[in-house]
């Protein structure tokens, strides 16, 4: 299934584009949002790669990123609110 890899490449390119927002973002909020989106894009790229290489065990990593990736973002939000 070669086309799945192209989808993965596309998502990684999107993540690379979002790194520009991490670099530029005038405030920490922008950087945090971009980092969150990069986490999500990484998870999707993982799904796509695992179906390309036909190993369902690779999906556990995507599961971890999906469930616990938002912890850091919420923590940063709490930090910005000043009530961590």
């Amino acid at each position, binding site marked *: 299934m070669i086309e799945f890899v192209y989808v993965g490449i596309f998502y990684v390119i999107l993540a690379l584009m979002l790194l520009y927002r991490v670099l530029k973002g005038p405030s920490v909020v922008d950087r945090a949002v971009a980092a969150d989106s990069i986490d999500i894009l990484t998870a999707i790229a993982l799904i796509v790669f695992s179906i390309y*290489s*036909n*190993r369902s*065990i*690779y999906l556990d990593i995507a599961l971890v990123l999906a469930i616990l990736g938002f912890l850091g973002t919420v923590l940063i939000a709490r930090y910005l609110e000043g009530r961590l």
Partner: protein
Amino acid sequence: MILVNYIACIILIVLGFYVILTKKNILKIIIGMGLIDYGINLLIISIGFNPGGTAPIFTFTELKPESFFVDPVPQALTLTSIVIGACVTAMALSLVIKIKEKYGTLDADKVRRLNG
């Protein structure tokens, strides 16, 4: 494919050393140590990689007869290295908190009561 990885590992390690050498904030120094960890872990895994291989975990379905594994030993080594890196980071951060309480600063130029 692997050559790119090696270059990236060297760049990561050099960036980590650059942070340790030039940045004066000790929290930033710990971030630099984290970068060195990433670089070395990537180096180990890249050494164990075998083009065309698959993950060294045996499952009944999904494995074709002709598929072969990448080298599992470097993966075990990297796992140990990651665990150690996490422990070192946690230890260093707790030291940073205590240093901040005691010295009132995070500047490496001012945390120098022991000299000479």
